């Protein structure tokens, strides 16, 4: 159970009262910047950045897969239970009375645009064989569609590992009719150079749709995987954008500084309206190492929040460390890189079904 101190409750109430009284653009007018990120900015004015929910439901998996071929790893997932779990998590995340109201709170429409005009990009991690399950992607697509976003405006992509071989077999067979699976990031215009709030003299390749503003909403669906110590030993939602931005500078001098720089960028986080609005870690199975390889443990969990540093930090500390027995260096940098510290973060909110 989540514990809320009186002090924290009073702080939250004061913040919510304040948020209700101002226009969204005022939320971003802060006095301090951390590499392009306005410290204190709320991704969603109705959901605390630090609020992260973990859904636990063993009924989401009928049995372990025979192999990690895309068809096999999805065949053992009970999509109705995934739906039920994600609905419960959305209610817990948004703290509303119904799933419908909760999903409508999670997703934000830019001023001056209609839901039917919006374009949504869904970043998945297709590196190796443990990939975001169709049930989770499909549920997110259907909730956006319920708000009015046409399926044909939703694009699943991985600019680094190519989502096409993994997800195209599910077009109209698990993925809603009309959803697009991109070859690399072609359906989002390919890559263009962009400056990052890091090394001013350098430009880095980024998925064009994030640069020219054609993508209104960015959904980040990662898996529970490890990685090199240099990146906090996790391949979660932050690392997932090595594929929205070019990944190679990570390995040749950039390290966690480059990782944090592209995650703080306006291309990922948006400007007036937040672009990355929802971050999910499909933790049905988990990998101690990675990102290459196959899972060692069944975990029966999904993690969700609006703010990727908090999602990754809590997934590392509250799931990977106790359940997989791994340790993580550098995950504090996920928070400090955005102007927070581990003192600011709440407990993982559990939604057990």
């Amino acid at each position: 159970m989540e514990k809320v101190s009186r002090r924290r409750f009073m702080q939250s109430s004061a913040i919510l009262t304040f948020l209700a009284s101002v226009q969204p653009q005022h939320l971003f007018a802060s006095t301090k910047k951390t590499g392009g990120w306005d410290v204190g900015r709320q991704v969603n004015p109705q959901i605390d950045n630090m609020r992260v929910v973990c859904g636990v439901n063993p009924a989401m998996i009928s049995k372990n897969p025979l192999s990690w071929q895309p068809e096999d790893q999805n065949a053992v997932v009970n999509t109705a239970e995934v739906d039920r779990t994600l609905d419960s998590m959305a209610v817990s995340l948004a703290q509303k009375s119904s799933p419908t109201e909760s999903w409508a709170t999670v997703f934000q429409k830019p001023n001056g645009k209609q839901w039917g005009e919006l374009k949504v990009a869904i970043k998945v991690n297709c590196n190796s064989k443990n990939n975001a399950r169709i049930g989770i992607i499909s549920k997110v697509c259907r909730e956006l569609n319920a708000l009015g976003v046409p399926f044909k405006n939703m694009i699943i992509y991985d600019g680094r590992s190519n989502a096409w071989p993994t997800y195209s077999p599910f077009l109209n067979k698990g993925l809603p009719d009309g959803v697009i699976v991109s070859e690399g990031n072609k359906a989002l215009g390919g890559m263009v150079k962009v400056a990052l709030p890091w090394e001013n003299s350098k430009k880095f390749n980024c998925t064009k749709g994030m640069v020219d503003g054609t993508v209104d909403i960015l959904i980040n669906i990662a898996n529970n995987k490890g990685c090199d110590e240099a990146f906090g030993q996790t391949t979660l939602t932050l690392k997932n954008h090595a594929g929205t931005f070019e990944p190679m500078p990570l390995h040749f001098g950039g390290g966690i500084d480059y990782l944090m720089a592209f995650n703080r960028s306006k291309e990922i986080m948006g400007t007036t309206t937040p672009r990355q609005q929802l971050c999910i870690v499909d933790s049905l199975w988990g990998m101690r190492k990675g990102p290459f390889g196959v899972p060692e443990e069944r975990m029966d969990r999904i993690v969700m929040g609006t703010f990727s540093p908090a999602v990754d930090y809590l997934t590392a500390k509250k799931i990977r460390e106790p359940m997989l027995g791994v340790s993580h260096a550098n995950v504090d940098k996920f928070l400090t890189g955005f102007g927070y510290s581990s003192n600011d973060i709440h407990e993982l909110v559990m939604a057990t079904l």
Partner: protein
Amino acid sequence: MIPILLFALQVDAKVKVKKLLITTQQQSWIEQKEITKKFTAKGLFEIINGGAVEYLNQGLVEGIHQQFSNNDGKTIEVFVEDFGNSEKSTNMLSSKKESFPDAGQLTGVSDVNAFSSKAIGALIVVGTLQNFYIELTISGFTDQSEMEKVAISFLDYYKLQLK
């Protein structure tokens, strides 16, 4: 210990890793040619994008990545990597073994120092042959012993190529 000692006494092969590229069909295994790739040390980052540092620290020179499947949905993914000499390939094996606390020695194949570890939906086999370090991921089987037989058949093939 004995297999490692015997192995260390062998003379390192002076063949290129491309000699271990499988180009002819092995039993019922069909090569997924779109996966096949030769890579240098730097190129490993492009394949695994994280996790490559240990391989480079241990002295990876070059390698090949292949995947095979059969009509029953069974697959075998292969990394064969040249570490320059048997000491380095053995060091890589030892380093990798730390990630698999439940690993057991693979028996049934001579002159190869190898361990296997059961993962969900797969068997992972890691071994060394002279200066080459080999990782096999076999999946789609219900029987572990069947997966071990497949691994041994691939290791035997590589041994044959190095003779």
